[in-house]
């Protein structure tokens, strides 16, 4: 082990004794704060949903968004497969699974843009009323998080193509995966609360 790596292990010895990696721990805490951020937006949506009834929610395209939900959930599977591949040192499979994750993420965003455009044509916009405001803000911020995840996946893909990721150095993939799963889980809550329980 290089001297740098030796010092690294030594610096974080208390955490290693607990079986923790500092980057992973930091990511979990970031996710905790993200949970509270979406918690605020979701609370606002639900508050108005039960206060105003949100009759506009009947206009939502549950079939389209249901398919989109399947797309996003499948991407959680592909990212796990990518992690498994890199841990086994199978570079080619890793690249393929990650590429598929990116494609599914982009497909989800495409579906969301299509859905948003459709709603705008029907007159539901950010400024059309409380429903539009809380719907577009909540799902829009989720979409921004998916977009951020896609960018992150592309960065990880570039690192994979350059060969800096391998069986010993797969933490970057695992941490990206944590974020990606979190974005998926948020969507499950949003899909249930916005589209299924109308």
């Amino acid at each position, binding site marked *: 082990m290089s001297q740098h790596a030796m*010092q*690294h292990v*030594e*610096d*974080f*010895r*208390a*955490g*290693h004794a*607990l079986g*923790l990696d*500092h980057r992973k*721990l*930091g990511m979990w*805490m*970031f996710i*905790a*704060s*993200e*949970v*509270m*951020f*979406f*918690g*605020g*937006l979701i*609370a*606002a949506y639900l*508050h*108005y949903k039960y*206060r*105003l009834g949100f009759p506009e929610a009947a206009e939502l395209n549950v079939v389209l968004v249901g398919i989109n939900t399947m797309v996003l959930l499948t991407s959680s599977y592909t990212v796990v497969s990518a992690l498994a591949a890199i841990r086994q040192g199978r570079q080619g499979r890793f690249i393929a699974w990650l590429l598929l994750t990116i494609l599914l993420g982009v497909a989800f965003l495409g579906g969301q843009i299509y859905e948003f455009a459709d709603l705008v044509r029907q007159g539901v916009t*950010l*400024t059309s*009323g*409380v429903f*539009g*405001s*809380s719907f577009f*803000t909540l799902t829009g*911020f989720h979409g921004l998080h998916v977009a951020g995840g896609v960018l992150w996946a592309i960065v990880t893909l570039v690192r994979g193509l350059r060969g800096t990721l391998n069986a010993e150095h797969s933490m970057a993939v695992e941490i990206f995966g944590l974020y990606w799963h979190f974005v998926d889980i948020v969507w499950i809550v949003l899909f249930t609360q916005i589209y299924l329980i109308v």
Partner: protein
Amino acid sequence: MTTASASVSWRRYFWWNTDHKVIGVQYIVTSFLFFILGGALAMLVRSELATPATDLLDGSTFNQVMTNHGTLMIFLWILPVLAGFGNYLIPLMIGARDMAFPRLNALSYWIIPPAGLLMIASFFAGGAEAGWTAYVPLSIGGPPGQTLWALSVMLLGISGIFGAINFLTTVIMMRAPGLTFWRLPLFVWGMIATSLLILTATPVLTSGLIMVALDRVVGTHFFTVTSGGDPVLWQNLFWFYSHPAVYIMILPAMGIISEIFPVFARKPIFGYRMIAMSSMAIAVLGLTVWAHHMFTSGMDPRLRVPYMVSSMVIAVPTGIKIFSWLATIWYGKLRFTTSMLFALGFISMFLIGGLTGIFLAAIPVDLHVHDTYFVVAHLHFVLFGGSVSAVYAGLYYWFPKITGRMLDEKIGRTHFALNFIGTNLAYLPMFIAGLMGMPRRVAAYDPSFTSYNQWATLGALILAFSTMPFLYNTIVSWARGPKAAANPWQAQTLEWRTSSPPPLENFSEIPIVTGGPYDYGEPSAPAAEPAAAPAAG
């Protein structure tokens, strides 16, 4: 781990630097500049209130000054100065070379100056005038500066979240060999509790600020009452963060006090585990009390009682701390250094703030004094008499470690005396004015309140003046004060086991911890300095 270049030039304080000690000083000095600015705004407020009529500032300007005074003092002074202490001290206290994420740490700091400038710029764009609470619809209809204000607070929140992630990861991952959680200094425990609160509460405020900003800029209808928007929603989102924020601002301050008493009483701290756990209890309970700010906002009356009870329960862990501190100094061999004086001042003034907090948690009392000067007096006793006293106590205590120079104790005592008199003179009369019914956030008031306000203005003048000896003391001492030893106060925590100021990466050899941080006069105490005084009591 990336650490800074070995350069020890003063210029390193003005550039991107990942050394936690440099970042700590950057935090403390930057926030002190905002403290002076916030203090100048307070002087404008107090000058206007010296007479019942509006003669210095018109109503709108007064609101802008008062809004920015509150926001600067909370978001750009107390929160960042305590984060500065955390940055400087945590790696030293746990025997680490730096923070877990040094570059993220530098980023947390470098968000603050632009956010502060944004806040100042908002003044010139037609300043925010909705109070630091930014209640809707006031904050929706106000001048454009309100948008910059919201953006600035959002940025400062993000900086705080990054800092909290760093503090927690550092403490969990990077403790020196033998430094178990039950051997952590109590300041570190305070920072753990505070960081947990920052992590859970700040993002909720961010979500609310986004709604306000969207309502203002895009024209969304979150808070448009005519479309069904609900102003009370903002109050919930705001206080979900901003009540825990008072614990975020006091828990590290209590940690500082817990460091100082054992050293200057030469006794082990009384109730170490109880103090540590009471910080955690306050962090958990603190998330359940926010709606006590909304007793008059038309909430369901049945909901008031649980919020009253949980708010009052916070007095229990707080009381545990105060009694533990008193038991620590009881029969101790006290040394009345400036730091110790500020710590003693902290107890007396924080107690007034804390007890009046229990009054305010009681629904019938709150209905009477809500939005009066009683609330203003209470919060200033907690934040100024409490947090700011602790910050001064900490500055006098750790200045030798940070700069390698000793402060002048005589000037320090003068500073303490002026500060103590000024604080009580400024804020005690406000209790009476509030009980008599003087509303807060007004530029003009009934002449029957004149004498209370003039006492308060005199107190504020003394407070403003008290900053001068402090600034003189720090600047002159930093330049040519007597050199400080590694451990001038004969303390036991790890930061004193390295030179003053500590070298890059803190310790020539990572210390191995064999005992608690306050084992004065106990057989298991590690051999600290040869000059260590034997403990008494």
